[in-house]
């Protein structure tokens, strides 16, 4: 058996042969079979090829979540290039800086967005409109398309996923085929993913969860059902949708699930036919998890953990035993072909119960950050435990420890990165935006209220700035989920002896609910 090199081999050698007529995607009123997805993707690939770009080049996708993104991404992959799904709600300035750094050869979009992309400095000849690229009159030669993949390696990138960066510029994580194949094969095996999974997709297309759902569609012929965005605020409607669509598999961030538990939706409407409930991205409070487990006793619950830089996730914990409401759920054990090192302050392996930084070793590691050697060198470093040859590990910045059962337990962050509504946010990026957007603010400190789950801006200014002004200015620079929702003005920031803003003092006042001054 020859080794798999490209994720598309899942599709070509398995799903398209076994179940070409099975539904691959349901997007609103429309649905597409695997065969239809293949044809649309290959038409797009042929249009990309005719633009004269080679392979291993970034091609961005500026489309709302849905079937269009799937066929665009696969079209890019079939052309031997790297897909970069953009957040179409991102403010123009932030988007422009991202595009300037990535420099995509082409952008796949739709006619309705042509104007806004032109405003970002993208010339018309770099745009591909999906409605014409996927149209019926686009002919393609299958052999020619597949021959584009011949020179590619498993270490060549499949996609670039962007995440918040503390200096104000986003980091663009380059992920290769091998790491997706590794994770998908592990998941199929360990989580027993069959051939009749109906996936309720809630993840934004610019998250890695979406790319994993795409891999399951390719590898197992799963059906992806896109959950309409406008249902997101209405948990009862989401649960009804799951039941109506026969969704049996979800991989969500806990935010929505916590909301469903708080409102006791599963006790009030018919419980959905879920068999697998996978969650990742932030801590799922055990009390709410217990609610889900009680309401869906037949489902398997799995906690996954991992930053984008190691491709999806690197540890897992399948819930089997009972947990009391105040007992934290472990992030568990390393996934196959992944090694977890817990390094203490001296860069030595931490003992049982001793906190240390979680570091990852294995082929799941990203290739680095696109056009960003400085940050790449900081996070992807040489394994301090291996002096013999250059072996790279990824330092997550997450603090963890191993308990007596050898389970890994999550503690928190070493720095100012937070998880909010499932998004990974560097508080430094918010501070950066505040200081550049609002001249009247002399100093800023952005904090996170853990209990209230609130981003808080403490700022120094001569006088109070109206709330509406603050928010409106920040919306020009930051996506909505990054905008602070609580604001406090101080005449003067507290300083520590070396003159820096006393973050710790401000933070303890916030968390303990003490007055600011």
């Amino acid at each position, binding site marked *: 058996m020859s080794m798999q090199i490209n994720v598309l081999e899942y599709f070509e050698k398995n799903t398209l042969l076994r179940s070409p007529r099975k539904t691959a995607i349901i997007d609103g009123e429309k649905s597409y079979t695997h065969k239809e997805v293949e044809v649309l993707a290959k038409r797009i690939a042929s249009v990309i090829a005719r633009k004269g770009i080679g392979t291993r080049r970034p091609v961005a996708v500026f489309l709302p979540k849905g079937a269009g993104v799937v066929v665009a991404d696969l079209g890019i992959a079939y052309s031997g290039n790297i897909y970069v799904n953009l957040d179409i709600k991102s403010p123009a300035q932030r988007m422009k800086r991202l595009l300037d750094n990535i420099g995509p050869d082409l952008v796949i979009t739709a006619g309705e967005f042509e104007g806004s992309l032109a405003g970002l400095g993208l010339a018309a000849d770099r745009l591909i409109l999906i409605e014409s690229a996927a149209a019926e009159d686009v002919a393609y030669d299958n052999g020619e398309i597949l021959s584009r993949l011949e020179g590619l390696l498993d270490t060549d990138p499949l996609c670039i996923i962007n995440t918040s960066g503390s200096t104000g510029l986003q980091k663009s994580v380059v992920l290769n085929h091998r790491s997706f194949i590794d994770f998908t094969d592990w998941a199929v095996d360990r989580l027993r993913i069959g051939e009749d999974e109906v996936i309720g997709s809630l993840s934004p297309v610019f998250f890695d969860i979406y790319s994993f759902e795409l891999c399951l569609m390719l590898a197992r012929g799963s059906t992806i059902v896109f959950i309409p*965005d*406008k249902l*997101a*605020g*209405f*948990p*009862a*409607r989401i649960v009804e949708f799951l039941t109506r669509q026969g969704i049996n598999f979800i991989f969500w961030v806990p935010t*929505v699930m916590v*909301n*469903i538990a*708080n*409102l*006791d*939706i599963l006790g*009030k*409407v018919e419980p959905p036919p879920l068999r697998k409930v996978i969650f990742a991205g932030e801590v799922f409070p055990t009390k709410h998890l217990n609610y889900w487990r009680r309401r869906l006793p037949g489902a398997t619950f799995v906690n996954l953990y991992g930053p984008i830089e190691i491709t999806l996730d690197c540890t897992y914990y399948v819930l089997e035993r009972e947990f009391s409401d105040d007992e934290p759920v472990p992030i568990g054990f390393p996934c196959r072909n992944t090694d977890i090192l817990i390094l203490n302050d001296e860069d030595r392996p931490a003992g049982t119960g001793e906190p240390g930084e979680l570091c990852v070793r294995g082929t799941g590691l990203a290739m680095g950050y696109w056009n960003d050697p400085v940050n790449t060198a900081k996070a992807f470093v040489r394994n301090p435990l291996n002096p013999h040859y250059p072996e790279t590990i990824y330092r997550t910045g997450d603090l963890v420890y191993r308990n007596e059962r050898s389970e890994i337990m999550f503690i928190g962050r070493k720095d100012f990165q937070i998880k909010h*509504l499932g998004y990974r946010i560097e508080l430094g990026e918010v501070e950066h935006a505040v200081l550049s957007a609002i001249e009247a603010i002399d100093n800023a400190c952005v904090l996170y209220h853990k209990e209230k789950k609130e981003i808080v801006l403490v700022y120094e200014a001569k006088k109070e700035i109206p*709330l*509406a002004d603050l*928010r*409106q200015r920040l*919306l020009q620079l930051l996506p*909505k*989920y990054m905008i602070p*929702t609580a604001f406090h003005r101080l005449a003067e920031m507290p300083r520590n002896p070396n003159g820096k803003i006393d973050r710790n003092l401000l933070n303890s006042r916030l968390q303990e609910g003490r007055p600011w001054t």
Partner: protein
Amino acid sequence: MENKILDLLKGIRPEFDFQASSDFVEDGMLDSFDIVTLVDELDRHYGISIDGIDIVPENFASVGAIRAVLLKNGARE
């Protein structure tokens, strides 16, 4: 009650003119984060707990609709 509701809405999305809209949800003025925040603030202000099955788009389309759902869930004017 209408004025209080409008105040809370403005606090959450100061950039919008809620009086000019006939359907806050359809017009994209309230997204999923806003609904969660709004329900939380309404619960707190009126000392009630809005039933989860009442959190549906049609109950948040207008100030009048929000008022009706508050009254149904035991809020007093």
